[in-house]
């Protein structure tokens, strides 16, 4: 309960911060891809890219560059109004300090195949990143990166695929790995395996208002939930007909609504906090889903990123979908940022 209040408190602080700074416009949809057929000026070849557009049903995407990098993940520092952006790519961490106009690779050859990245929103100098080789952090905004695999003993444990900064305790981190879920109580310095017996975890996410609730998508065993901060886990799969899940999203407007997608799944939706799921795929030309995002303030407007067919949007809260561009895009993440 105490953790719950903390989470709500942080959310309120962020809201207040946004209001005070006037940083509250139409949300922006950011999409990162491993590759696309997008033809940038002079480069009519498949490109990785960061795209953005206002949250709307629109197939015109703005291009923010970073070709040839296989982009896996994006994070944005909210308080700086998007001035600070970071991307996890196969060539390392790319950082922008000017709203994505210019970028710098802040890592060297030691950090490769970086697949997830999270900014500590209260301290943007503190950034966490993961890769198949382990967990990394910087405490000086990317000037220096250090590897922290203490407790991640096996090859599989070091294959980290996603990171959650616990909203109730920013020093508490949870990561998904090929060996299961690992938890750090000291900002990623060391790790202990959680009790989840299932391995090959592809994604971990936290409930937006109840920080005790976490959900994971696995490569072979469907979706699991924890309601006690990651200690005890239970499968919630009523209605689930698939095994591999790469993305799980809580609707920020109503967290009882959850979307999930993965290998050949189309989009699954639950309206009761994950107890029961319904499978929807009307309008989707590609059922491999790696990214889903719900528009803050508009639960009907949902985006889904496919692995090979770009982005689809639903205007009816996931009942049906229509293609809105990024041709042949292998979409790895979609983020909707309120500005």
């Amino acid at each position, binding site marked *: 309960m105490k953790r719950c209040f903390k989470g709500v408190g942080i959310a309120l602080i962020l809201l207040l911060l946004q209001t005070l700074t006037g940083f509250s416009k139409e949300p922006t949809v950011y999409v990162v891809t491993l590759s696309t057929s997008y033809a940038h000026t002079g480069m009519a070849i498949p490109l990785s890219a960061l795209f953005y557009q206002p949250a709307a049903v629109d197939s015109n995407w703005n291009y923010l560059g970073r070709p040839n990098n296989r982009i896996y993940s994006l994070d944005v520092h909210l308080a700086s109004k998007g001035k600070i952006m970071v991307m996890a790519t196969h060539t390392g961490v790319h950082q922008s300090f000017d709203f994505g106009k210019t970028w710098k690779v802040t890592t060297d050859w030691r950090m490769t195949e970086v697949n997830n990245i999270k900014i500590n929103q209260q301290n943007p100098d503190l950034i966490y990143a993961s890769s198949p080789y382990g967990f990394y952090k910087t405490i000086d905004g990317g000037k220096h990166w250090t590897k922290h695999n203490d407790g991640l003993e096996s090859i599989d444990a070091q294959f980290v695929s996603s990171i959650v900064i616990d909203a109730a305790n920013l020093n508490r981190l949870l990561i998904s790995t090929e060996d299961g879920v690992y938890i750090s109580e000291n900002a990623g310095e060391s790790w202990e395996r959680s009790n989840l017996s299932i391995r090959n975890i592809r994604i971990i996410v936290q409930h937006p208002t109840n920080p005790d609730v976490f959900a994971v998508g696995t490569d072979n065993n469907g979706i699991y939930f924890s309601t006690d901060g990651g200690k005890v886990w239970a499968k919630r799969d009523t209605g689930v007909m698939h095994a*591999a899940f790469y993305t799980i999203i809580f609707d920020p407007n109503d967290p009882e609504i959850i979307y999930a997608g993965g290998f050949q799944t189309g989009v699954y939706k639950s309206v009761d906090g994950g107890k029961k799921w319904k499978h929807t795929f009307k309008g989707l030309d590609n059922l491999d889903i790696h990214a889903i995002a719900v528009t803050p303030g508009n639960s009907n407007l949902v985006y889904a990123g496919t692995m090979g067919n770009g982005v689809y949007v639903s205007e009816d809260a996931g009942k049906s979908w229509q293609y809105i561009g990024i041709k042949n895009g292998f979409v790895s993440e979609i983020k909707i940022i309120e500005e």
Partner: protein
Amino acid sequence: MKLKIIIWILLCAALIHLNLFAQEVTRDDYLKAFDKRVQCFVTTYDTSTRVSYNTIIARYYSNKNTALADKLFLQLLKNPKGAMFWMFPNISAYIIGKDKMSPKVKAAERNVWKTYAPARGDTENHWAMYYACLLLATEQWPNLPGSEWYNGRSSKENFDESKEYLFEWAKITTTIGQGEFDSPDYLAEYFIATSMIAEWAQDSEVKKLGTMLTDYILADFAAEHLDQQYVGGYSRIYERNLMRFPISSSSTIAYLYFGVGEPLKSGWILIPAITSYRLPEIIRKIATDRSQSYVHKEKKRVRNVIRYGDKQNPPVYKYTYMTKDYGIGSLHGGLLQPIQQLTWSLRYQYGKPFSMIFGLHPYWSVLEIGMFFPEEVKTSIAGITASKTTYNNPDKWTGGSPCERTFQHKNTLIALYDIKPGTTSEHIDGFFPANLQERIIDDSGWIVCKAGDTYVGWYPLAPGEWSEEFEIKKQAFNTKTSSKVNDGTMELRNYRLRSHKLQNGYVVEVRSKDEIGSFKKFRNELKSHVPYANLKPGAVSVSYVNLGGDKMEFTFPGKRVLNGKSIDLTDYKLFEGPFLNAEVGSQKLTLTYKDMKMLLDFKKLERKEYY
């Protein structure tokens, strides 16, 4: 007159036998001939008008119509494409031509390194090329801020990172072995990277490292070279190149640098060829003197295992037996490199380019892909097959398998397979070229083959079936699985021996005419050498006394016993043989040929030749 002719023929035969022809090539003669080969090679490109970096490089190099080179360069700079495969010809063209090109081209070239981001790639050869090229580029434009480079890093940051990586790669290669090792196709990529920094690096340490690494990778090839062919097991090879070895760039390297075989002009070798690097005489000798048969052993490392494994870089054990007529070599087996591994092969002098016999378990799985690639394993097969089209083809001719292990002793090889039901694929295959002079199914159970002066016996431990495979315009197909009809344009390429028994294996015996005498004698001797096999799941084993009287006992996956003594593969050195020797962890390679010696000490960055 007749007597004179006979005496002359006998004299020539004696000289050939003593290998004096090969050894009488003096260093000066070799260098002159090398320069001629290179000049002929360069002419292919410096007379071309094709829009390609090779045309541009050759024209700047030869000073032939550099205005055309400028024009073509500008054309290519307008639309840069590619990763490190773009970087190496691009920066080479700039360095070779910078004193001849127009200011406009120079400006365009500078701009492209600011605005175009080439990918770094994900394999060892990619990184070697990427960092070699980036380092050379930073030396061309030193002291620039990050805003002047495609990755936002300053000239110094890029230089420091590149130098550090190149030294780190050299260290791991000379300590626990190269990861992407002994590849007839990818040898060129390393050769390009190392020879470029040997030639153009301004940093003296990097330059020295480049020369030493070039020596190192060419010496590695030389010890397993047989008349333009890379012998034995490979980390990577493309199937089309496996079938037609001259396509592999290593064959062009053999022609240009070892001075053997048919003239080949793989465009990959143009850049190394126009550098001032000259093959040390000792490496040429090692590559070409096959007057004595020998065993050559190596330890390499598995490509980075990122999941589903116990260690990141387990060792690879490689065993090769070389003679003047043939070479047979094997990796110890298992999944060592994704997709393009060839665990063992026999190559010989006869019937090129189909001058090989080999076998495999054509395995593929999401497990294999997940071990080596970071993407989602379940969706990755489609991505892999987009570029490696035969990956999930049960008829493919390349690929490693966790169900395959080998045991080799000189010219005898045993391969065992223990395949679980449901594994892709549920069969093993043997490749026998159609141009064999003999392919006899002997009553003893041996398949006995003759390829010129090389004789091959193959004893299948379980029954199999034969099929014929044809080519139409070099596109292969199998008569059992294809509906194509012979309209007269297709040519028989090979026979496929397929066995569907999941617990399986075979014994391969190879002898040359010099070693055993007649083919008839070889066939007769095989009759009394029959392997005893146990093909129960989980207990696959074989006991065999070879033609040399050595008893080989092999139990899948890893128990190898020779004449009662267990073979401990962990005893393998990085290199061990008459020519190359290196201890694990030493960072030193010693080359020996008769009274010649060369030492490459990467720890001290010293290169010494003792003649």
